[in-house]
């Protein structure tokens, strides 16, 4: 009986790994999740969740235009991602409309433009895979691009880890001691655009914002240390990706949706049982355990 259970678990885990596309999907999703998870702790602390949503939706027309022109889709996405943020800043400054309204207005405008462009430009763009992601069908050139962008973001975030933390925590102090706050602001935005670009391949444009905020929010409930928060955020994002992809394989579910749902469940678990900040505080249990 025990042996039988063990072998069925074994099959459950290893069977999908015999497929090339599954190995690739697992690798890619974990990589993307790690990148988004890393960035996530900064975005949640900075209060940029809505900004993340805006940027990730705004990259849509960029992706379509880049495909149509035969350019790397990341380039188009990046331009439109940063452009949307610049536009949000401009409209906010030049009008009396409130910021959250401006954000909503700009990103839906860009998103709609993207959808219209897809219908107009007759090409082999698959709207479904842009909207919902397609980690099981990623091409080799996309893999290369994603790995490159991911590495770039990870390196940038690692080098400026402490400066970005300070920028999120107390930009006034950062400015006072001669740190270039303007640069850090745009660095974080650049990383956000790039992360949105790689994220949209696995979970799609609509859900990529979840990759950018949920792991950070989960980690925020579990620790009071910034470095630990980053690590927990990355780990929870990777675990969610693996769970999501396995569930998608065995139960024939939409992959992007499964990954995000796994993240949401992990958040829910932290929300309920986090030692200090959960609804049922398990502080005692954990302090005994330590």
């Amino acid at each position, binding site marked *: 009986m025990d042996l039988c259970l063990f072998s069925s678990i074994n099959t459950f885990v290893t069977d999908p790994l015999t497929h090339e596309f599954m190995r690739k999907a697992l690798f890619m999703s974990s990589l993307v999740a790690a990148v988004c998870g890393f960035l996530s702790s900064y975005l949640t*602390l900075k209060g940029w969740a809505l900004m993340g949503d805006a940027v990730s939706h705004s990259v849509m027309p960029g992706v379509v235009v880049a495909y149509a022109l035969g350019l790397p889709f990341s380039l188009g996405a990046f331009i439109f991602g940063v452009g949307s943020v610049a536009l949000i800043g401009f409209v906010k*400054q030049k009008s009396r409309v409130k910021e959250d309204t401006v954000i909503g207005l700009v990103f839906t405008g860009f998103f709609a433009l993207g959808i219209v462009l897809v219908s107009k430009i007759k090409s082999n763009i698959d709207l479904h895979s842009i909207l919902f992601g397609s980690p099981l069908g990623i091409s080799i050139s996309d893999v290369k691009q994603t790995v490159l962008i991911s590495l770039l973001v990870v390196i940038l975030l690692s*080098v400026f880890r*402490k*400066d970005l*933390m*300070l920028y*999120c*925590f*107390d*930009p*006034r*102090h*950062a*400015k*006072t*001691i*001669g*740190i270039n706050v303007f640069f850090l602001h745009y660095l974080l935005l650049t990383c956000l655009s790039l992360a949105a670009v790689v994220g949209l391949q696995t979970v799609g444009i609509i859900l990529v914002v979840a990759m950018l905020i949920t792991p950070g929010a989960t980690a*925020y409930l579990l*620790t*009071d*240390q*910034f470095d*630990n*928060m980053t690590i927990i955020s990355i780990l929870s994002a990777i675990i969610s990706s693996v769970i999501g992809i396995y569930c998608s394989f065995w139960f024939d579910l939409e992959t992007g949706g499964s990954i995000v749902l796994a993240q949401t469940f992990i958040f829910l678990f932290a929300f309920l049982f986090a030692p200090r900040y959960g609804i049922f505080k398990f502080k005692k249990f954990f302090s005994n355990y330590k």
Partner: protein
Amino acid sequence: MDKPNYQNYRIEAENICVDYNGKVALYDANLSLKPGQICGLVGMNGAGKTTFFNSLTGFVNISKGKIRINGETLRSAQKDQTIAYVPQSEGIDSQFPVNVWDVVMMGRYGSMNVLRCPRESDIQAVKDAIARVDLMDFLSTPIGNLSGGQRKRTFLARAIAQRASILLLDEPFTGVDIRTEKLISELFIQFKNEGKTILLSTHDMIHVREFCDLVLLINKTVVAYGETSEVFTPENITSTFGGISPDVLFGPES
């Protein structure tokens, strides 16, 4: 370079103006402070106190006027770690996942390499600073678990660790316990003797009389500026607070 020239001004602000998208927050403000001087910044809410601080730290750009720090530009003062800013309690996110040690170490970032790896000297500076504000027992306490007074001392320690010669303090006495208040007052005297220059905003008129050499009364611009004994008169305070008598504001005894 190391020995401050006591003839020179630490802070010189000449006719500075700040506006936010056309809305004037501060205009024609002047201030000059020497080493070892403590100046109180007094004004109503929205009178431009925080804006004044922001322009001196470079956090907002001035639209007109000139700021010289130790005779040099603001930019080089920032690079030299000359100015430290101690935020008011509401100005920071107390739920941010950092502890006392992390916050005080932030005071050293400006003198570290690009990766912000602390050297032995940075670690020593942080330890000394934390000892001076009497928080050695709270090194790894998250700032969210500190009392208002302890948190205020943490940010003061950050300014000490920075080894700045100019301290800007936004409401240092608001929401702190008596012990912290006493400790901060004692530190101010030490800073003064070390030749540091202090500019602090406060709502408490007693504090102004107690240890401010100079007082700057503002209401969008400078209403009065000078020696506390000469400038801090009921008439001036009344005009600073828009015609409300100081008796009403602070009681007849203050």
